[in-house]
């Protein structure tokens, strides 16, 4: 990948990588670390991307794996969270409250919901990306949707 291609990819996909990491890890500081790792791997990869879809799919998959590695690491398990990276800000206060509620959902619902609702992947694709059976993803999406619907009504 040339420097120009990398910079274009970073401009296009860094937000996506960061959002996925945020949904997976919850803490902005961890999400930044994960996003940085993913983008470094992109810069260092020898993979020949066949097109935008291939590149995007590769980034989603690597982000999920990097986040999984991070949550399994001894460091991650032992650290005490001290939030000093700012949380995302929103134009309306109710959106901020909604965001807090969404991020308070259990992690097993957050990431499938994000990939399904925001990135537009189907349940089978989400299952493949997360290494979980499609039927399990469908159950998590249904339960996550239910919880999210309540949150939206309350917000």
């Amino acid at each position, binding site marked *: 990948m040339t420097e120009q291609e990398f910079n274009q990819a970073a401009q296009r996909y860094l937000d996506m990588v960061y959002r996925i990491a945020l949904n997976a890890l919850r803490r*902005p500081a961890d999400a*930044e670390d994960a996003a940085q790792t993913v983008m470094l791997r992109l*810069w260092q990869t020898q993979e020949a991307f066949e097109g935008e879809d291939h590149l995007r799919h590769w980034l989603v998959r690597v982000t999920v794996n990097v986040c999984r590695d991070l949550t399994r690491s001894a*460091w991650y398990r032992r650290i005490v969270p001290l939030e000093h990276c700012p949380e995302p800000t929103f134009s309306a206060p109710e*959106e901020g409250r909604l965001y807090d509620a969404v991020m308070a959902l259990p992690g097993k619902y957050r990431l499938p919901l994000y990939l399904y609702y*925001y990135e537009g992947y189907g349940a089978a694709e989400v299952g493949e990306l997360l290494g979980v059976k499609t039927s399990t993803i469908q159950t998590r999406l249904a339960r996550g949707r239910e919880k999210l619907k309540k949150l939206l009504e309350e917000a």
Partner: protein
Amino acid sequence: MKREYQKLFDQVQAPQRLREEVLQMTKQKQTARPRWLPKAMLAAVLIFVILAGTAIAAVGMPGTLRDWFSREWETLSGAPMTEEQLAFVDALTQPVGKSNTQNGVEVTVDSVTVGNSTMWMLLKVRGDYPVVGETGEEYLYHFSGMDLLFDPDPDQVNTPGGYGMDVPYVAVAEEGVLTMMIRFTIDLAGQSSLLDGSREVTLLLNNLMYSDRVLLEGGWTVTFPLEVNGERTVKTLEEIQVPAMDLDTRETKTVTLYDVEISPTDITYVCSAEDQMWHPMACSLELSDGTVVGDSGGASRFRDEAYTQWSSVYYWQVPVDLEQVTAVWFGKTQIPLT
């Protein structure tokens, strides 16, 4: 619902600082592996230093690695470090005295203490940087990025993770010299050691910070020789059973650890990939005089590219003479070593 959800996440964007860091990646050496201090790890370090603040005030400000380890020893044992223990720390410690100056600020690697997988580096920062903040809040000084490269590289494993850098101690001397301890540990998966042979070490530091404020922009590169004699002292245990906990569910069970290597500075071990969610209870060493030296942090990675062996390294609070060690503990389980 979908529209509202999308509208919400439309507003979540990567911070500008992260964007800038990512776009700078292409300017760095492509072969260099990132060892930038993870922000969450820094948070843990900040808490550690806050908790240690009382001890800093009580016994004075360490200006050498020997002083720092002495203070740590006194905190954990309640007694001054013995002459034998001081001599042991001295044997692992070597003077460096290499510097780099950028924008009127000189960063010197004063000295290092090096062991199997862990290295403590004492830094002195002198020059034209603003001294800010309150006394007792020196821990807020840090660098926005830290990286450490070895030549030759001891890391023979091609799996991600397995290393960490943290800053367990920061102080400002009366003459305005910032003294900073940087600790580096890497899981070398039992295949090599930092003590295997002499190397050239390059420490890369970016932007001097105080909390989230940039005090001085710049990039400091300090290269220094790491001279070791190739001797590597370890106690090995082929296979042990230890208590472990799934930190999500708080369930406990016994797991098997393989290829356990206990060195004066750290411990490494392996468990199966299936057991990686089971976290062995806190590990410590019991010494013949009753002192207990705990582990203080570490890193994990897969030891093999087939991702079947989950490998971990944890460093001790202070280097320990293995001849004085009588047992290793995991939680309440004692494993005699004599």
